[in-house]
């Protein structure tokens, strides 16, 4: 491990340790934050009991569905828009503003329309995540070097072969940025929707545990979601690094 990585680890350990100490010494009220060790043991008990399995399946499955739809639809829509310059020009200001307006405020509206089911959650998740993928696809296709079109002609490649063998690899890093953002947004939107108002799911479990003053359960669930989100982000980050390394010919 590098020196900087070591320092980072120490910083994190000291921070968690300080929180543990402050809780144990009573500097932080037990009703506000429980010691991290208790969070971990509560999570362990909860996971071992198996009562959480259905909720985990439901929430993670929904997030996976949202991400899959967002990536597939975002890529397809991005390709179509890229082929229609006039439409794209008209849509550009909307894309530029999209993440500046609180789209999530439409979640209750979706509940009013579709009722309290998984439909509003999936829709708000896709609405949050899909535009990042569209923008990334447009960016990626923009950056495909013009010379590749000539290469394709020289090699007499068909349209599909050009797309698969030349354009897709050239756009891949930008597409991956879109994937990363979609994953992150999908996570955030689904959990937030469940937390605010939903029939079931981990997010709703947290808000219920909060309402019941069940701090052990609440912190166990929070810890679980934070761990899963961090792991997923770390995997994507690692993949991103490898992509960057490959692009620079292994020199990075």
């Amino acid at each position, binding site marked *: 491990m590098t020196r*900087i990585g070591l320092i980072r680890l120490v910083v994190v350990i000291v921070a968690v340790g300080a929180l543990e100490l402050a809780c144990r010494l009573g500097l932080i009220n037990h009703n*506000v934050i429980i010691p991290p060790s208790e969070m971990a043991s509560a999570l362990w008990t909860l996971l071992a009991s198996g009562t959480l399995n259905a909720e985990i399946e439901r929430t993670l499955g929904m997030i996976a569905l949202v991400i899959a739809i967002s990536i597939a639809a975002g890529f397809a829509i991005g390709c179509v828009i890229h082929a229609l310059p006039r439409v794209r020009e*008209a849509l550009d200001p909307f894309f530029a*503003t999209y993440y500046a307006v609180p789209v*999530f405020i439409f979640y*209750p509206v979706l509940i*009013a329309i579709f009722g309290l089911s998984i439909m509003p959650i999936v829709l708000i998740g896709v609405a949050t995540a899909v535009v990042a993928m569209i923008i990334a696809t447009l960016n990626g296709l923009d950056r495909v070097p013009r010379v590749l079109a000539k290469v394709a002609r020289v090699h007499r490649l068909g349209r599909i072969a050009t797309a698969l063998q030349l354009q897709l690899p050239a756009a891949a890093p930008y597409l991956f940025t879109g994937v990363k953002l979609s994953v992150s947004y999908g996570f*955030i939107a689904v959990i937030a929707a469940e937390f605010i108002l939903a029939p079931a799911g981990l997010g709703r479990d947290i808000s219920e545990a909060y309402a019941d003053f069940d701090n052990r359960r609440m912190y166990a669930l929070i810890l679980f979601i934070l761990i899963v989100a961090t792991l997923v982000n770390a995997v994507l980050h690692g993949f991103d690094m490898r992509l960057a390394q490959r692009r620079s010919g292994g020199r990075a």
Partner: protein
Amino acid sequence: MTATRRAADTLVILFALLVSWELLHKIAGETALPAPLPTLVYLLHNLTTPRFLANLTTTALELGYALILSYGIGLAIGVWMGAHRLSGAVGEPILVSLYSLPKITLYPVVLLMFGLGISGKVAFGALHGILPVALLTMGAIRTIPQVYLRSARTMQLSPWQTIAHVLLPAALPEIFTGLRIGFTVTLLGVLLGEMFASKEGLGSMIMNAVQLLQGEEMMMVAIVLFAFAAIANGLLLWIEHRLHRRV
């Protein structure tokens, strides 16, 4: 010519949005989603009611306080991590992974610490805003040409003078990008806070409207928030472009 064409295209898309709203209204029914025109009429009639104004003021106040915290703390962390290489190298991945977490899971913790009143929502808004402001400020300060810092040292400027007269002016356009994104996510944080366990503010107003099946009110609040966020973002973007051209 191109400007008018672009404006026309934008209008066409706005019109398409209105049409799809109307279609959705036809499918969903009157109580779930009212038609565009009655909603606009309702909006114009109710923009000045005391109840709406009170909620608007609450949200504005919360956003204001949350922005002061986001900008203050975010800039402090960003300048520190940008100027001090080791802190930046150690801290950046930590900040990045915190940034991509679903912060809503931490809202109960914020509520337990700060209570159900205005301070909880302010803290939650700030929690959203601090990280992007800090990250973009750090990036901005890191990309300042070394020669500026060397000249600051040659002129024997104190650390504070270096920050005030060299670092901040040189990094201003990029820092401003951070402030703009910070504004967006702080607003989102405040609204999310209001949507859960809150009795005041536009976010709680929209939740109430849904529960009472008041479609017009629900859409009215959404439209006002959208318009406000879009205009604010446009304004900040305009300032940002000017700053970029100045440097």
